[in-house]
Structure formats: C-alpha cells, structure tokens
C-alpha cells in the first residue's frame, strides 16, 4: 500500500514536470504523425512487391511505428534521469524512507502513460490515413508495446544511473538501438530480406515483437506468432525490470 502510494507520488511529480515542458509535448505528439505523413505514402508502391505481406499496407507499417515509438522512445528516457541526478533530486528522494523501487516505478509508469497517449494519437491518425485493423487486436498490440516500452524505460534508467553522463548514456543507447532497429523489420517487413539477414534478425527480440504486432493488426490473436511475441515480451519485461530494480537498489546508485 505504502509502495503504491509512493509510486503514485513519484508518478504525479514526473507527469506534472513532463506536461510543463511544452516543446517536449509537441515533439512527442508530432513525431508519430510525421512518420505517418512522410513515410507512409512510400509504402503504397512497395505493397505489391513479392514478399510483402498481404493486406492493408497501413496494417503492416503502423505496428512498426508503434514499436519505434515505444521501444526506441523508451530507450532514451534515461537522459531525463541524468538531469535529475545532476539537480540532486534523486539523492534527495533517496534520503527519505520511500522505497527505492517506487522512485523507479513512478517514473516508468509516467513513461508508459505517455506511450499510451502517443500510441492513441498515432492510431487515430493511422485510421484516418486508411488503416484497416480490428480494434481488439490493436488494443492488445498497444498493451504489448506499453509493457515492453516500460521494460526498456526501466533498463534505460539503470544505464543512466550507471553511466551518469549524457555522453556515456548516448553511446550505449545508440549502440543498442541501431542494430535492434535495423534488424527488427520495423520500417519494412523482414519477409523482404535475403535469407542470411532474416536468420540474423531472428535473434533480435524486437523483431518478434514487431511480428506479433503485425499479426494482431491482422486479427490473428491466437496465432503462434503472437504467442512467441508475448513470450519474448515477457522475457524483456522481466530482464528490464530486474536490471532497473537492482541498479536503483544499489547503495551507491
């Protein structure tokens, strides 16, 4: 009970400060729309190519954008924490009886809520552009992204505490993000890739999340692809949360 209370306090404070940052707010909402408007039209031409999944091209593209938004957005939330460490806010909060885990969980919750709002805006726009996908599958897809995003946010905070500097954080986050992004089939499906590339991409957990999301957008809720995606997602969540929790509870963090 006390833990939930403290998590809520940290969440409200983090949310309040995020909402006060107007530039961040506008960029956060505009970014998914720009992807839809500027990249989406290219897809219509590719949609007929061999290897491209059948069906609505928006239903192939939008799940990729969701993952891009969720996972790769979350990987960089640690930058905000470095600022808070430098301001002394984290240390101040650590010299209270509040649970160290609540200090992490409140911030991760803020990131998950932000992600849900951004996803809703993205999906509303995608439907307007011509997305055709069953609501049930889409809702499940958004939930999966929110949980996996929370796992990446948690890991990002841990990396932020461990590196302590923007430079260190940026080099680690980028060296993780870029290969994950290129090998996930976010922008174009991996079904278009030659065999060797497809094999390599199979070890990328994000690729399985993207595949599961695309299946959900097709309405294939009870499919093997979705099952694999959910399992991979659960593993990511367990790993990300464990990493974040351990780092936040270390004495010198």
């Amino acid at each position, binding site marked *: 009970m006390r833990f939930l209370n403290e998590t809520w306090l940290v969440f409200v404070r983090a949310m309040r400060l995020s909402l006060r940052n107007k530039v961040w707010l506008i960029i956060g909402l505009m970014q998914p729309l720009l992807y839809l408007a500027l990249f989406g039209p290219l897809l219509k031409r590719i949609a007929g190519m061999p290897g491209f999944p059948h069906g609505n091209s928006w239903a192939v593209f939008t799940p990729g954008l969701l993952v891009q938004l969720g996972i790769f957005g979350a990987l960089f939330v640690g930058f905000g924490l470095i600022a808070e460490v430098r301001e002394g806010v984290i240390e101040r*909060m650590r010299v*209270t009886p509040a649970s160290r885990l609540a200090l992490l969980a409140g911030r991760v919750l803020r990131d998950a809520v932000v992600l849900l709002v951004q996803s809703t805006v993205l999906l509303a726009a995608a439907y307007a552009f011509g997305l055709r996908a069953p609501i049930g599958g889409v809702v499940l897809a958004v939930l999966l992204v929110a949980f996996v995003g929370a796992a990446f946010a948690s890991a990002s905070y841990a990396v932020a505490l461990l590196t302590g500097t923007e430079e260190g954080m940026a080099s680690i986050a980028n060296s993780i993000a870029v290969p994950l992004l290129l090998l996930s089939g976010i922008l174009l499906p991996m079904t278009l890739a030659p065999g060797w590339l497809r094999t390599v991409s199979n070890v990328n957990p994000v690729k399985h999340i993207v595949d599961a999301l695309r299946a959900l957008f097709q309405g294939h809720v009870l499919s093997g692809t979705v099952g694999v995606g959910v399992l991979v997602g659960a593993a990511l969540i367990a790993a990300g949360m464990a990493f974040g929790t351990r780092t936040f509870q270390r004495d010198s963090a």
Partner: protein
Amino acid sequence: MLKVDYMVQARGLAKHFPSRAGDVAAVRGVDIDVEVGEIVGFLGPNGAGKTTTLRMLTTLLAPTAGAATVAGHDLRREPVAVRARIGYVSQRGSTSPQALVGEELIDHGRLHGLSRATAEMRGRALISELDLDRSWDRPCGTLSGGQRRRLDIALGLINEPPLLFMDEPTTGLDPQSRANLWQHIRGLRDEHGVTVFLTTHYLDEADALCDRILVIDHGEIVAAGTPTELKREVSGDRVALQLHDPARLPSARAVVDRIAGVTVMRADGDLLDFSLPDASAALPGVMASLASAGVTLAGIEVRRPTLDDVFLSLTGRELRDQPIAA
C-alpha cells in the same frame, strides 16, 4: 555517571573503492561523535573524504567497514529508520528548475509519509522562517543561489529531523548570502535544537559557525576540538619583531631563545619571527629583556593563530592548495 546523548556515533567507518590500481581507500576508519545540539564541522580539502563520509552517514553509500549509530538507529541494520530521522542538504542542490517551490516541499514531505495537509503546513512555515516568503508558487529555477540553498534546507527539514547533514552549505554563495545562511544554521540549533553536521573547506566558516571541528585529511581524522582548542594546541601565537638595527639580531635572538616554548620561525635582516604558547603573558618580560640587552624595536606584530595555521601545521599543506578557476 553523567550520560551524554550522541546523535552520531561512528567507529572505524571506512570506504574503499575498487579501481584498476587496486583498492582505493577514500575513508580509512574514522571515529565520529556528535552530541545532541552541537554544530559540528567536518573540515578538509577537496578529496579528503568529507563527502564520502557524509554519504555513508546519510545511508547513500554502504561502508566497507565500521559501524555507526545515526539519530538513534543502526546505520547498517535500520537505514530506513535513519532516513526518516535525518535531513540531508546536498552540495549539488535538490530541486528541479521547472518544479514549483510548494510542489517540491509537499511532494518531499509526502515521501516522508506526511499527509498532504501536514506537508503543506510545515512547508509554508519553513519557507517563511527561511526568508523565502512569496516563493511558494515560483519555479525553483527562478530563485537566486542563496534562496535555492535555503530551499534545500527547508526540504531537508520537512520531516522535522533532530539531525541535519549539510554538504558544503555555502559553496558558491556570495559573502552576504553566506553570512545570512550561517545565521539560519545557528537559528536551527538555537531555536529548534537541531543537531547539525556539516562539511566545509572554508576555515572561516568552521571558525564562525561550529562548536566543534573534525579535521580530515587523506581519509583520516587528524585533529578534533573546538576552534579555540585547535588553535591553542597546534600553533600558539605568532610574534614578529622588527629591529631598528639589523646588527642587533643575534642579541635579540639570544633573548627570545631564553623564553620557554619558543620556536623561531625566521631570523633574517631586521626581522625576528617566532611562535610561543601565550604571547600576551610573555611579551612584557620579553620587551624588558630586549631593552636591557640594548635592542630597540621599530615595530612589533602579534598574531593569534587562524585555522589556516592549524591546518598547515597538521597536514603540512595549505587548505586551499587547488588553484582557483579564473
């Protein structure tokens, strides 16, 4: 038997950091006693181990060795209870620039388990006590350096702790804000009975503010006592005599050498510089002996030792040995 109540009791507190060159000892087993109601200064140059010790006492860093009782609770076994009973004012500040003063105070109070109403009531009282009236609805980033430091103190006091830790409380403040802050820190003790443990690398601050001083250098406590005790123990008074006739220097030196406890620091040209335990008692006799030895003086200067002298004689170094950034 008279029982003294201690707010901090540390024995053999040590912190080693692993590094490529092996273990680096930042703090090498310090003993610290702080009585209830004292203002104790932890004095030392940068890198001496002050902040590391403070971070251990405030539960932010686990000690490698040693034990401590802080505000009545065991540091290792009951860190949460310690945190509930202390305030901590860090060197780097404690507020987000965009957050409003009132929000930070209420949130911090509630992290300490206070109700919203209690946190707000205490926050408003602290703000007014620390001369921050009308700042409640202002973003923290718009406060001046001195105001922001006082807000850090208000945050540290929201749980009404009997013990307040402050890390370099006046670093970076202008002289007026420093003097003002000293007054507030004295007020915390005098009016609220708060025990204060602060680190500083300013000798004048330790001298003006602290009841007792612990001098730390290279991770070890090298001296402890009241400012007056430290000055008396370590240096004695300094006297500089300027002679009319440099040729009389040997006679003057012969006179001075006969006084008990004298150390001649410098004898050069017309100048004779020496230290002795109690200048005010010894000087009348010295003057008479000099006159009968035929030495006439052009000038005389008596200087009470400063903590700078104390530090120099304890460590062989000036306290501010780092160049000041231009």
